[in-house]
């Protein structure tokens, strides 16, 4: 069975407008190509755009200039270990400032509404609850599983109850950050300095920019060469 089409059934663009579209496409592509050439980026560039700029450490000095040996005396040699104070939120410690009086406190497992509503407990799923680690009566202390109370400065004992392998590695200096002197006094961090105890997974951070790719390496950053008298 054959069908015949009439011009009215399949509307066609008038020749003039189709030509215009073609021309538009043609020039559009041309413009794009020109733009990419002018920006100095070839189409096959796998690397991100920032790989074309030489970033220097001075841009990130706020991140990089901490003095990690401050307060440590190399002459002290063996045996001295410093731990910075626990990373409390502003104005939150001592807890007993608000939690006063004996007998106060509700040990029932519940969603907190009156205070500490910003805490999202993402640590051990359904199995954890405030009073697994905090003590109902001694608010300024932490509580081990066996009931022993430990100060916040020794929170690693609490963490180490479950994370024994990490605790062992941390004590031998493999897990966690150690600064100071490799042959002298050192500074340790507590677990809580890197891991929020209520949500311990390490939070993603913004990476510093990638290195300049070789295709962009030749171009010195404007001003730098002149400033330093470098470049012959």
């Amino acid at each position, binding site marked *: 069975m054959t069908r015949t089409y009439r011009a009215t059934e399949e509307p066609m663009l008038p020749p003039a407008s189709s030509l215009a579209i073609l021309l538009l496409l043609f020039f559009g592509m041309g413009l794009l190509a020109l733009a990419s050439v002018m920006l100095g980026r070839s189409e096959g560039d796998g690397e991100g755009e920032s790989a074309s700029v030489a970033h220097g450490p001075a841009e990130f000095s706020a991140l990089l200039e901490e003095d990690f040996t401050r307060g440590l005396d190399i002459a002290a040699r063996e045996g001295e270990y410093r731990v910075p104070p626990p990373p409390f939120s502003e104005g939150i410690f001592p807890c007993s400032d608000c939690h006063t009086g004996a007998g106060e406190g509700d040990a029932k497992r519940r969603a907190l509404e009156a205070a500490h509503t910003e805490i999202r407990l993402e640590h051990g799923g359904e199995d954890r609850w405030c009073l697994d680690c905090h003590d109902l009566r001694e608010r300024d202390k932490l509580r081990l599983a066996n009931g022993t109370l430990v100060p916040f400065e020794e929170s690693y004992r609490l963490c180490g109850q479950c994370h024994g392998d990490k605790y062992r590695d941390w004590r031998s200096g493999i897990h966690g950050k150690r600064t100071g002197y490799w042959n002298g006094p050192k500074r340790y961090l507590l677990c809580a300095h890197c891991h929020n105890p209520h949500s311990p997974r390490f939070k993603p951070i913004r990476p510093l920019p990638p290195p300049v790719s070789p295709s962009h390496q030749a171009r010195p950053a404007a001003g730098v060469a002149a400033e330093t008298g470098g*470049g012959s």
Partner: protein
Amino acid sequence: MSPDDATRQDPAAGPRSGEGVDVGRRAFLKAAAMGAAAIAAVAGGCGPRAEEFLQKNFRELSPAELARVLARLEEEYARKYEKKVNVSATGALPGTVFGYGLDLSRCVGCRRCVYACARENNTSRAPQTHWIRVLQVPREKGVDLSEANAYYDPPAVPEERFAYLPVACQQCRKPPCVKVCPVKATWQEPDGVVVVDYNWCIGCRCCMAACPYGARRFNWAEPSLPAAEVNPDTHYLGNRPRMKGVVEKCTFCLQRVRQGRYPACVEICPVGARKFGNLLDEKSELRVLLREKRVLVLKEDLGTEPKFFYFYGT
């Protein structure tokens, strides 16, 4: 110790700063230096440029000669950067062989180490020289260098699919770069750090071809380093400002570690993935991780025996 002003103002022995040296000038300087040497033999003194030209290999310098070299360099840097730059030549501490550990299960690829290293070690800003290169590798491939990408730039790291592998000098116990150097300008120090005498290096880049880790960098152009950013605590074999035409590389922050400090990359690492210590000390964290963790070295089959150990902390 410092050369007197009269000789420094001698045009033949003018300061090194500024314009490049063309062939004519080099030949002229050579002749001038020879002349100066002859004069020196008689008069016992010559200008800094000639002194630099006639300087021996670092390992052949007598203590007095070394002191003179360091003073000359300090003076040169003071003139160039208009501030006091210390150049030390502290030797290896007895009973130390340095080793490095990097926890591949911790590194998040944030590149803090890359820039902390540049800041500490006075590397050229433009053209940009980085001693550390952080490679992003797909997790499913394991440690596969052929899939590596050094130019990743997502808004946040770590990304689920990737692992991160920072690579710098592996401080091999059998360093191929040292073996191929035709002039012995690079060698392994008693504490195991492979160093370069920038003043002895002829820039042939044989060492770069020999290094299986791509860890060495060449100064193709005069390095640029803003005076305000110069780290004035330097070591002759480490982070003192370099010149055009020489090779450089990671030295485990020689200027720091021989004073007991940790390398800059260890200090800055926000996740504590970088470990440093004395391999001869049984109690050092290095020895503990070598005993207890799964450890790998890059390209083990080449027999270079790196002292840079990657490990899995988990």
